[in-house]
Every structure is written in structure tokens, then in C-alpha cells.
């Protein structure tokens, strides 16, 4: 991966405060009294099993969902206020990429600087091509998202986020649906980008390896509640059996299904 530090992208960054956040959909609680503090410049990983509410939590930080009660602050700005997006460069890398399918990779990346008139077309081109180079995507510049592999789509989504020169970077399941090699690549990209930009990064994932590799601090969310927060080392041998079972799942070899397989083998 090309270095990012030579670029002028690095700028200010924000901390995030989640204060007694509750969210219900049609009366069904999804988030219950969630409180978290993400410090400026750190990588904070939120882990949890499927359906635990971690993506909904991330959408609240991005201002895409309104809380039922409680609040999310980016710096001292309310995340649910549309004005906040005008003051904070927030980028969200969606789980499925959410690339604009009718646009080429180049246009996907150029959209933000064009719409916000950040520079002229030559400047936009330079900015887009430099970002694509950082993520080794030069050859994909004229392709449409439908022509890309899953791993490339993820990298283009990250590139699109980087073009925004984010002050807060959010990742929703960045390694889901990827093979182990591509997962490792994406993990490396996230860690390197944070090192080079010092941008506050929140990652939502159920990938234990990713979390332990990149997190400065992490939290485990289960059934919409924060079960534990701490440094990655504290999660290597957790005392809470539910967290231990989630992070280090064991297969019960005495299960009748495995017994049957063993008998068949004999």
C-alpha cells in the first residue's frame, strides 16, 4: 500500500460520546442504555454477534437513525442534527460498500469533491487518482462497481471515504464476506490509515482477529447492551462466559451429529 503520510489529508479529528442511547423499532428495543466514550484519534472496535445492534449503533453515530432516547455527540455536536454533517467530515464505509452502481469508480470518488466544490476538475482528478493509488486501485478507475470483486468493492468504498478527508471514519463490518487474505489486507489498510492520519475510527465487526489486531479499545455489545469495554488484551481470556463463548467459540464434539460422523468414519 502506498504511503498516506505524504498526503495533506491528515487534519483535525473528533471524539464520540454515546450517552444512554436507546432505540426501538415498532416497540422492539434494539439498543438499551448504550453509553460509550470514543477518544479522539483512537480505533474503537464494537464487537457483537449478528443482530446485537452494532450496525444500528453505528448508524446513530453517522446520523442515519434518530435515537428513541439518549444522544450521540461528535465532539460537542449532536450527531442526529443534519447541521453536524456540515461541520464534521464524517465518512462511513458500508458493509456492502453502497457504491453508486450507475457511476464508475472514478465518479464514485469524485462525487464528494465535485458536489462540495472543493477544487477544480484537475484538482479532483489528482485527488481521486492519488487515493486510488494508496489503495492499489489504479486499474479499477474506469470500472463500474458491478465489475469488481467483493474485496475491490470494499477497497473502493474505503477510497471513497478517504477522498472526503474524514475527521471521523466509521466502518461497518469491513471484513465480512471476504476471504482470509483479503480480510487481512483490509485490516492492514484500516490500521495503516489510522497510523498515517490519526483520524478517530470506529469499527463495527464480529471478526475477532480484526478487533484484536487493530483496536486501541473495544466493546462487546449483546442484545443491545454494552456487555464490556476495555483494551484488546482484556478480551483474550474474558471472565464473562457469554463474552468468552462469543470470542472463543468451542465446538461441542459430544453433539450427536459429530458422534454420528465419527461412527460413520469408523
Amino acid at each position, binding site marked *: 500500500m502506498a504511503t498516506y503520510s505524504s498526503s495533506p489529508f491528515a487534519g483535525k479529528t473528533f471524539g464520540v460520546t454515546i450517552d444512554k442511547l436507546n432505540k426501538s423499532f415498532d416497540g422492539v428495543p434494539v439498543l438499551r442504555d448504550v453509553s460509550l466514550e470514543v477518544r479522539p484519534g483512537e480505533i474503537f472496535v464494537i464487537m457483537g454477534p449478528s443482530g446485537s445492534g452494532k450496525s444500528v449503533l453505528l448508524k446513530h453515530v453517522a446520523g*442515519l437513525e434518530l435515537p428513541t432516547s439518549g444522544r450521540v455527540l461528535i465532539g460537542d455536536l449532536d450527531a442526529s442534527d443534519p447541521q453536524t454533517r456540515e461541520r464534521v467530515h464524517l465518512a*462511513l464505509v458500508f458493509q456492502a460498500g*453502497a457504491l453508486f*452502481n450507475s457511476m464508475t469508480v472514478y465518479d464514485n470518488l469524485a462525487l464528494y469533491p465535485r458536489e462540495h466544490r472543493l477544487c477544480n476538475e484537475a484538482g479532483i482528478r489528482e485527488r481521486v487518482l492519488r487515493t486510488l493509488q494508496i489503495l492499489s486501485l489504479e486499474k479499477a478507475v474506469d470500472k463500474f462497481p458491478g465489475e469488481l470483486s467483493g474485496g475491490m468493492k470494499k477497497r473502493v468504498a474505503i477510497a471513497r471515504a478517504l477522498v*472526503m478527508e474524514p475527521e471521523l471514519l466509521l466502518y461497518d463490518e469491513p471484513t465480512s464476506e471476504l476471504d482470509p487474505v483479503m480480510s487481512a489486507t483490509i485490516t492492514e489498510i484500516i490500521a495503516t490509515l489510522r497510523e498515517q492520519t490519526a483520524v478517530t475510527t470506529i469499527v463495527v465487526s464480529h471478526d475477532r482477529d480484526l478487533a484484536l489486531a487493530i483496536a486501541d479499545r473495544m466493546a462487546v455489545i449483546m442484545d443491545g447492551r454494552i456487555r464490556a469495554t476495555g483494551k484488546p488484551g482484556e478480551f483474550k481470556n474474558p471472565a464473562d462466559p457469554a463474552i468468552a463463548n462469543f470470542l472463543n467459540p468451542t465446538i461441542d464434539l459430544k453433539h450427536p451429529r459429530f458422534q454420528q460422523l465419527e461412527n460413520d468414519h469408523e
Partner: protein
Amino acid sequence: MKQLHAILEGIGSTVLLAVRAGRYLNTLPRQFPRFIEQCYLIGYTTMPIVTILSFFIGSVLALQSGYSMENFGAKQFIGTLVGLSMVRELGPVMVAILVAGRVGSAITAELASMKVYQEIDALVTMNIPPERMLVLPRLAAVLVMMPVLATIANLCGWYGGALVCKYTGFISVEPDAYFAALKRFMEMKDVCDGLIKAEIFGFVVVLVCCNVGLNTRGGPREIGASVTKAVVLSLVLILVLDYFVTKVLI
């Protein structure tokens, strides 16, 4: 009660969408390429079907009225009947229905797909309001293209009627007589009323289709459901509005 709530919610969100899009009116000049693209999609690509259908609607109108009016010896008024019917009613309504079926469905499908695949959410996080980028250029384009389409529909309908009058044995009204009758009772107000109707219908169709698309939730199946909902809603609204707008304009 639940249905009434849904109807009121739908009306509210549609009006709100129009207001939000209107707030970005000053950005229209720099969205000129997008506006032109929408003019092409809404106007140019709809033109062939408008031409064909309106030609045959004018023809059938002349044929039916010729058949009936011959009994009263009123064949010389066929031009008046076809002309006024096309300008005041059939032209705007038919164009609006075609725009709803052809353009409205495409708009809903595109926006619903963008919503389902989180492209709209991506725009929001990039601080690019969907109302500015996706709704405003379409509304502006439909306002420009509807009078053009309605005028083409009127002209094609008139000429369709004229051809039928000339070449149908039991009618045999020459084009000169046909167009003289058409002009005699036609006023500028009739033309303007028709164009106003077309503007209103087109605006409502695109607004409703955008709103339904942007409020789609769920997966690919809901995209289809949204398209059906948007087209049915548009057709109902065109006919309901037609009555009230006609009543106001008469």
C-alpha cells in the same frame, strides 16, 4: 384508522419533499448537466410513444365523432371537437399517464434501488442531500418537458383526426375545413389551461414517484412493490386532480 394515518403521512412526506427540494433551487444552475440528462430521459425518450398514441387517439376520436355526428349533420364540427378535446383534456391527461408509466416507474425503481442498497444513506453521510441531487433536477426537467410533450400530443392528435376525416369515406371532411373548425372555437385560454394541467400532473407524478422511491424499505421485492404503488398512486392522482383542476380552470 391505520390507513388514514398512512395516507396523511404520505401526503405530508410528499409535500415536505417538495419543500426540501425547493430549498436547493439556487443550486440548479450548477446542476445543469443533471437537468439536461433528466430532460432527455423525461422528454426526448417519451416523445415517440406520445407521438404515436396521440396520433391514434386523435384518429379514433375523429372516427367515433364522425360516425355519430354524421347522423346530426354536424360533421363540420369534428375539427372543433377533436381540437378542444385534445387540448383541454386528452393531451395533458394522456401525456401525464405516459410519463407516470414510463418515467415515473423508472424514477421509483432507481431511487428505491438506491435506498435499498444504501446509496441514499451514503449520500446523506457525504452531506449531499438526495433532494438536491436526485429530486430537484427531475422536478425542474418535468416542468420544462411537460408543456413540450403536451403540445406535441395536441398537434399529433389534431393531424391524426385530420387524416381520418379526409380519408374515411363516410366523413370526408377536407383538412382545410377541419382546421378552420378547429381554429374557430379554440381560444388561447384553452391551450394555456391544457398546458397548466400538464404541468401540474407532471409535477405531481414525479414528486410522488420520487417520494415513494426514497421511502422504500426492505429488499429487492419492495422495489417492485414501490414501483407498482407509485404508478397506481400517480394514475389515481392524475384523474382526481384532473377533475379539480378542470373545475378551477373552467
